[in-house]
């Protein structure tokens, strides 16, 4: 009895091993040549576009009415041509392409498009992108090929919102969309079908040979989810992946390794410090000016971002056609200008090296999300720079819900940005009507000039007029400095030399399975 115990345990363990390893999928011998493996940290929560998967297109599994080319310009997707906008800007009509089928063979009709958009507007559906479509009054399908969007008000960049993937109504009608099986095993029209998704491990996609944009150049794509940066880098070096997103410093390690190419891809993904107006220190323009001059953006990009970044001075990225060069500042620290701003604002040097004005020390708290090591490092870099000019910052790493309750009072290291239209995010972040609404304008920044410019940018259809509006918006922000913009990140990817067809494009803050460097992986081949 006694002697048998360890043997029994070993037997149990082996039996377990056998059970756990049994579900080996058949057909494992898919030619490795025709499979591409990419790795990312960002695993989507769901694969349903209605619930926020790949809402800006390039989702590999779905298509929107419109798509974006390598320059992020809109091109027709499921729509035969770019949808037309009525002269008053309130009616948008799209005509579908002929002969498009979902992965299950059922044909795509305008009813599917209507279902997709109505599901997002349905209050019973826990869709967090509903607020992106608040201009939408109704969607109708006068015939199987035509979709008509009726807007509550004219919204210039509406077509940009139509990149959202279309789901088949038949698969979801009558089910609880929030918890449908579809969210894990979706059916789309895109270049790849979902073969399997093992959460925490990988997503296996198989080519959709009848894809309307042409049969994919490869048979299979595996997206490996490896949350840990270091493990991902190690496995990339072991040759497991064809492409992987890596933290900049880790990616730099591949610069000198043969067989790999490091891509530092421009993005609209910025990091900056939100400075609340209600705080007695950050609410003072002199302090904000001093901070803006005191931070050494060059050193941060070199030391924290490993060179993969561009200095940021506003929320419109330099790669955008709407960027206003006059709003840019100096990348290096300018202690003289910072000191001058503090002197002019009445902040006098105190005994402890920290400036003060009328009994108020130039000290404030800078919050950062505790799990984000990049924001932690940026927060510490800002803290160190501010100290040099006599401003004391107390960094505090918190969870988001703890940050929530304090954002109107304490500064916060935030990140946002999409390259598609300056109205996205900026309208809600800087317009006074959103002051204090959650993470929209948490600092209660109010400027009539900015309000008007943002409204014009959304109302006016004429591109030149929009450009002028956003130029005035950026200049006003550079004057008021409600944020201390630090850097635009470059998303860093390591790709094997043998891969042919990589075509990076400017990326948004959100990038995981969708909208990463592999947005066009259906055209990738091996050399």
């Amino acid at each position, binding site marked *: 009895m006694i002697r048998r115990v*360890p043997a029994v345990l070993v037997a149990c363990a082996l039996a377990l091993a056998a059970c756990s390893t049994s579900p080996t999928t058949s057909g494992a011998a898919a030619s490795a040549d025709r499979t591409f493996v990419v790795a990312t940290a960002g695993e989507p929560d769901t694969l349903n576009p209605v619930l926020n998967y790949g809402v800006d297109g390039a989702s590999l599994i779905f298509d929107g009415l419109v798509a974006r080319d390598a320059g992020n310009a809109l091109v027709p997707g499921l729509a035969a041509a770019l949808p037309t906008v009525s002269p008053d800007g309130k009616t948008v009509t799209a005509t579908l392409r002929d002969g498009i089928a979902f992965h299950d063979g059922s044909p795509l009709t305008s009813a599917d498009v209507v279902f997709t958009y109505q599901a997002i507007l349905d209050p019973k559906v826990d869709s*967090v992108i509903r607020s992106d479509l608040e201009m939408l009054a109704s969607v109708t399908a006068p015939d199987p090929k035509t979709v008509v969007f009726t807007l509550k008000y004219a919204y210039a960049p509406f077509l940009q919102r139509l990149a959202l993937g279309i789901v088949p109504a038949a698969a979801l009608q009558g089910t609880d969309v929030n918890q449908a099986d579809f969210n894990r095993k979706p059916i789309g029209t895109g270049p790849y079908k979902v073969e399997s998704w093992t959460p*925490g491990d990988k997503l296996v996609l198989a080519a959709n040979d009848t894809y309307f944009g042409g049969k994919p150049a490869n048979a299979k794509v595996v997206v490996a989810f490896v949350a840990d940066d270091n*493990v991902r880098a*190690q496995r990339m070096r072991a040759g497991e992946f064809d492409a992987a997103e890596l933290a900049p410093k880790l990616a730099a390690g591949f610069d000198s390794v043969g067989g790999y190419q490091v891509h530092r891809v421009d993005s609209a993904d910025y990091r900056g410090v939100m400075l609340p107006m209600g705080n007695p220190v950050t609410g003072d323009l002199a302090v904000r000016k001093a901070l803006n001059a005191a931070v050494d953006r060059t050193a941060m990009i070199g030391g924290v971002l490993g060179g993969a970044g561009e200095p940021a001075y506003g929320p419109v990225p330099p790669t955008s056609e709407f960027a206003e060069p006059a709003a840019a500042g100096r990348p290096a620290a300018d202690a003289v200008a910072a000191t001058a701003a503090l002197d002019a604002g009445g902040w006098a040097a105190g005994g402890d090296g920290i400036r003060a004005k009328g009994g108020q020390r130039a000290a404030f708290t800078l919050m950062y999300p505790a799990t984000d090591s990049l924001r932690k490092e940026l927060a510490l870099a800002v803290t160190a720079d501010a100290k040099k000019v006599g401003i004391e910052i107390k960094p505090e790493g918190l969870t988001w819900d703890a940050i929530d309750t304090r954002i109107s009072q304490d500064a916060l290291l935030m990140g946002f940005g999409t390259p598609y239209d300056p109205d996205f995010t900026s309208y809600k972040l800087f317009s006074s009507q959103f002051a204090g609404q959650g993470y929209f304008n948490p600092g209660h920044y109010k400027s009539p000039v900015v309000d008007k410019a943002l409204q014009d940018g959304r109302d006016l259809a004429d591109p030149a007029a929009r450009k002028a509006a956003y130029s005035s918006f950026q200049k006003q922000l550079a004057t008021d400095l409600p944020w201390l913009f630090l850097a635009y990140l470059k998303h860093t990817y390591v790709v094997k030399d043998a891969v042919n067809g990589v075509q990076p494009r400017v990326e948004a803050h959100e990038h995981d399975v969708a909208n990463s460097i592999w947005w066009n992986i259906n055209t990738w081949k091996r050399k």
Partner: protein
Amino acid sequence: MSRRFAGAGRVVRRRLLVAVPILVLTSIGMFALGAASPIDPAKQYAGSAAFTANPEVLAQIRANWGVDDPLPVQYLRWIGNLLRGDLGWSTSRHEPVASVIAARAGWTLLVVSLALAIVLLASLLLGALAAYRRNGIFDRTLRAAAYAVEAMPVFWIGLASIAVFALALGWLPAGGLTDVTASGTGFGDVAHHLVLPVLVLAISQAPWFVLFVRDGVADSLRDDHVLAARARGLPGRTILFGHALRTALLPFLTLIGTHLPELVGGAILVETVFSLPGLGGVTVQAALGSDFPLLAAITLLTTAAVLTANLATDLAYAAADPRIRLDA
């Protein structure tokens, strides 16, 4: 044999009489903590999209979930659902808690049981050998090593092993469960990936067991029946493994039971270091995402499993040792 289990039914009942109320109390404590926690489940659900979602949208999500009901109602609903097998919806992983656990529990069990098997075999062997030559070189080295390992955090051992065996030597993978290109979970592939995590977990847990066996065997080597065997001139191997080790094995069984909580803790850390798709990794994710349903379900289930295993080792102990009466 059957007489040995005579009191078993009563003992099980008596154990349950304590264990069940404690499980219930734990669940109430956990629920109260979750309810008192300032964390907004709707924001956790929305993830990064919460930053661009309207407050009304979030309020609607909360209403859809019924999180605004009174607390006792919520508790009873939660516990009722748990008992019916509906473990709830994981807010951080956006899938049913049951399927999260089902997909991952097997790997955790595999890692834990393999490590335990290795620990048991190695500690019996090493401990007995050390005891045979008390205070010999082997004994002293082994004990010094055991104390040193006992003082090392398991995640640090894990990192060191990655640095040496994965990065410097390149012999073994640094993490993950399978080669990504593999379309399934092949035996050789998984085994290759599990060598480091299982060994690290085993090494970190071994000191307790090794020292225990060593002391136990050393004591029993001085027992009468062992001395008698020696006097009869039986070979050393027979004395050591046939007599002394057998006596020392009994309390060893209970040590396994009492040591399970440590093993669970070690598994969480090891899975995190090696990014294995087991329960440990997902527990940490759930904790970082304040995912109450998932975290609570994993904690309660693991607790119940450990309590059951404890009871099992006690019963096995009693069955193995005629001197113990279960109802004592």
